């Protein structure tokens, strides 16, 4: 078997780094021992591509290469990386150094890739990405609009490095920020640098990270140590996978940030609270920690500077509310993850009642960048009150579903229409839900809204953790509200009355609206009830839960009125308000619908017009989906 490994000849166990010079020396050796001209086949092993069998693709490529027996000098390496962001086009295969980008690759394509591209230097045209607008095939990653318009800073290593090999991270400059902080900066200087960068928390509320660290220092002055540093990796928003991608694809970036934070605050212990449904993230973080310990970058006497710090992983308790800071602490302490009814800040009284700094995965991953390249470089990205970049997961009615990183302050339209390629079919989008289940909707008319913390809040929505759900004309705002409320109702811990009972009540009112029952007065009541929950709930799960309903009433009041006054659902979603009918002009009598209808209520002979018997129609909508001629209508 030839050596397809991209790993270098360097033996990890022979190295225990004792200084910044050692780290740089190691990086040099790794770079020297890799041939820059050696072809590299990069196969995405992110969760999305794996779900489409990218592991079979890498196996097939491996087997194919062995069989082809290419001259050992040009023997390509196969590298498995984390999610490269363009999940809707997966499985992805990149060929370096040319940078060829193959998409939707199947195991059976392996031989052709080897034969044509690797042996003859030709392009396999049918595997290239085709721009849906220009219909042109694009050969390299850099030219694809989805990537070209992004600014990948936090995600820059993902898709390039093997997340299970620390040497790959070190080769691309990993841990140099840590070395810099430990050897040439005081803890105070580290805190000052983070403050100056303007970095704001990426987990939801957007609290300035530097200010949080500073208040922790003040609390430590009063209460002494220990102090804890904690990573919030509980990501539970439907449709969000930013943090998962970072933990899976570049675990060292989170770890390095955490160690730097620990140094700045004088913490000896840290925790990574990771959602239990993310086994790959846990595995990669565990491996990362093990390898970092082996190299002397974690544990006792890091880089021989006298600073010691270690961390451990906690699996999330499986409830959305456990991502809330105080619930997360009680969960780490081994108790049920309920929010604490207290008006104290966690920097003063967090985990085990001690001063604690809790930051989100992406927040921590930004820290090494700030330390390495400086606060000025960092704050040059983005806009004045929201510096840096933000990673978004783009899902819903959009062509390019995937992970996107852009500088703060770009307009919504850039993300949805240019990078995301807009709504399939080319119609304008209706609204974008930002900020997860407790965020809000930005309507098409506000599509030039800059995506930064303050502008989104002003529009009634929020940054949240960065999930973006694109909706089109076939999405009903009443239905969307019901969906999010049902989610939060299930996730409410039940401790406080406004959330436990109020959310169910809001959902029941929307259920009635979806049946055409209700009145304008009830819409006003709903706004008042929402306000009572916003004002009254104990934690942010409850107090932000009414946001989707409040923003949709603000921007789409007509659609609510159509439901309660005219008994119509303009989007054709609410079953009780629609009937399915076949357009006689368009029906070709292909019989597709009548074959699919589960309740056998479509009649008509072959090549003759078909008719739906409304009395036995169960409104499943299968006929509409199955008709290729768009003849099934909802009215």
């Amino acid at each position: 078997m030839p050596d397809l490994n991209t790993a270098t000849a360097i033996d990890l166990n022979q190295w225990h780094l004792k200084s910044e010079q050692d780290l740089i020396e190691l990086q040099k050796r790794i770079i020297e021992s890799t041939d820059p001209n050696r072809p590299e086949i990069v196969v995405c092993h992110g969760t999305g591509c794996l779900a489409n069998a990218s592991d079979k693709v890498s196996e097939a490529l491996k087997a194919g290469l062995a069989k082809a027996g290419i001259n050992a000098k040009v023997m390509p390496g196969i590298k498995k990386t984390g999610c490269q962001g363009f999940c809707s086009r997966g499985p992805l295969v990149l060929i370096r150094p040319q940078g060829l980008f193959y998409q939707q690759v199947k195991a059976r394509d392996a031989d052709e890739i080897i034969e044509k591209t690797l042996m003859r230097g030709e392009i396999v045209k049918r595997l290239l990405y085709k721009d849906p607008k220009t219909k042109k095939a694009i050969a390299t990653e850099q030219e694809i609009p989805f990537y070209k318009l992004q600014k990948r800073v936090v995600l820059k290593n993902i898709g390039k490095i093997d997340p299970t090999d620390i040497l790959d991270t070190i080769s691309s400059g990993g841990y140099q920020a840590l070395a810099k902080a430990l050897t040439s900066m005081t803890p105070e200087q580290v805190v000052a640098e983070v403050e100056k960068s303007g970095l704001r928390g990426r987990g939801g509320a957007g609290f300035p990270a530097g200010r949080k660290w500073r208040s922790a220092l003040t609390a430590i002055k009063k209460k002494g140590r220990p102090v804890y540093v904690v990573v919030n990796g509980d990501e539970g928003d439907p449709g969000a996978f930013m943090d998962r991608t970072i933990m899976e694809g570049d675990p060292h970036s989170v770890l390095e940030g955490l160690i730097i934070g620990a140094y700045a605050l004088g913490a000896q212990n840290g925790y990574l609270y990771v959602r239990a449904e993310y086994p790959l993230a846990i595995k990669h973080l565990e491996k990362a920690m093990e390898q970092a310990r082996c190299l002397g970058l974690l544990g006792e006497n890091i880089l021989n500077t006298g600073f010691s710090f270690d961390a451990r992983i906690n699996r999330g308790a499986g409830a959305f509310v456990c991502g809330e800071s105080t619930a997360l602490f009680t969960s780490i302490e081994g108790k049920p993850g309920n929010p604490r009814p207290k008006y104290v800040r966690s920097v003063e009284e967090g985990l085990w009642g001690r001063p604690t700094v809790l930051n989100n995965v992406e927040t921590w991953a930004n820290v090494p960048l700030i330390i390495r390249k400086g606060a000025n470089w960092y704050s040059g990205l983005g806009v004045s009150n929201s510096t840096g970049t933000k990673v978004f997961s783009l899902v819903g009615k959009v062509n390019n579903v995937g992970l996107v990183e852009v500088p703060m302050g770009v307009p919504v339209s850039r993300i949805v229409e240019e990078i995301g390629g807009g709504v399939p079919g080319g119609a304008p989008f209706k609204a974008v839900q930002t900020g997860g289940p407790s965020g809000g909707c930005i309507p098409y008319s506000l599509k030039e809204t800059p995506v930064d913390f303050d502008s989104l809040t002003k529009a009634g929505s929020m940054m949240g953790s960065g999930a973006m759900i694109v909706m089109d004309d076939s999405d009903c705002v009443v239905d969307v509200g019901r969906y999010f409320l049902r989610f939060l109702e299930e996730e409410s811990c039940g401790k406080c009355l406004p959330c436990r009972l109020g959310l169910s009540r809001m959902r029941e009112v929307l259920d009635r609206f979806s049946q055409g029952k209700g009145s304008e007065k009830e819409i006003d009541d709903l706004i008042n009830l929402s306000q009572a929950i916003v004002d009254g709930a104990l934690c942010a799960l409850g107090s932000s839960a009414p946001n989707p309903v409040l923003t949709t009433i603000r921007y789409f009041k007509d659609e609510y009125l159509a439901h309660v006054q005219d008994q119509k659902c303009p989007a054709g979603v609410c079953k009780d308000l629609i009937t399915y009918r076949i357009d006689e002009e368009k029906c070709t009598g292909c019989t597709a619908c009548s074959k699919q209808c589960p309740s056998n209520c479509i009649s008509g002979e072959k090549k003759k017009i078909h008719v739906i018997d409304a009395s036995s129609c169960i409104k499943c909508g299968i006929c509409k989906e199955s008709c290729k001629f768009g003849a099934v209508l909802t009215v």
Partner: protein
Amino acid sequence: MKITFKINDKTVEARTGWTVLETAQHYGIDIPTLCHHESVTPSGACRLCMVELKEGNWSKLVASCIYPVKEGITIYTETERVSNVRRWVFEMLLSTCPASAKIRQMAANYGVASTRFPISNPDNKCMVCGLCSRVCEEVVGLSAISVVDRGVHKKIGAPFLRPTDVCVACGCCVSVCPTGAMQSFFDQVRGEPSMRLTQLTRQSAQEVKTS
């Protein structure tokens, strides 16, 4: 040390460590409460005690039973936002524990006589504030009963909702319950008296032996 601040434009003085509610009660300012009891740790569950904290143009609602006093703050106990929360909470209470006469009385005093929420169980009195279980744990020291389940399914019960022999039938939970619900639950948690006796006898026998 004295802390000076304002409640409803009136200057008040409090000791360090007091809550806004304690200060208000000290001055005879009425704030409705339900889940609060001075002998156990507060849970902040009912949200009836919400008051408005104002700072210039900006304001927010806080739960007075847990909000610690701070020098110079301005508190209003009966604003439009406050009463919007309380009125809705009362409507929620009327729907979730309609059988509680105490709750109906409190709501009526606040001017809330009916509810727009559906009533799922007309016989229920419990609002799951957890006072009973906190008393049992913190004062009696037994944890015979606890809050089980989460979200809308949250309820009070002995472990596995069976009568428990851990309970010594002291009745503390009954006396602290603000809705009168524990009275009706009592037989469900306190277990068989005979069992309890045998267990106690066994225990004291054990103690005699070991001493």
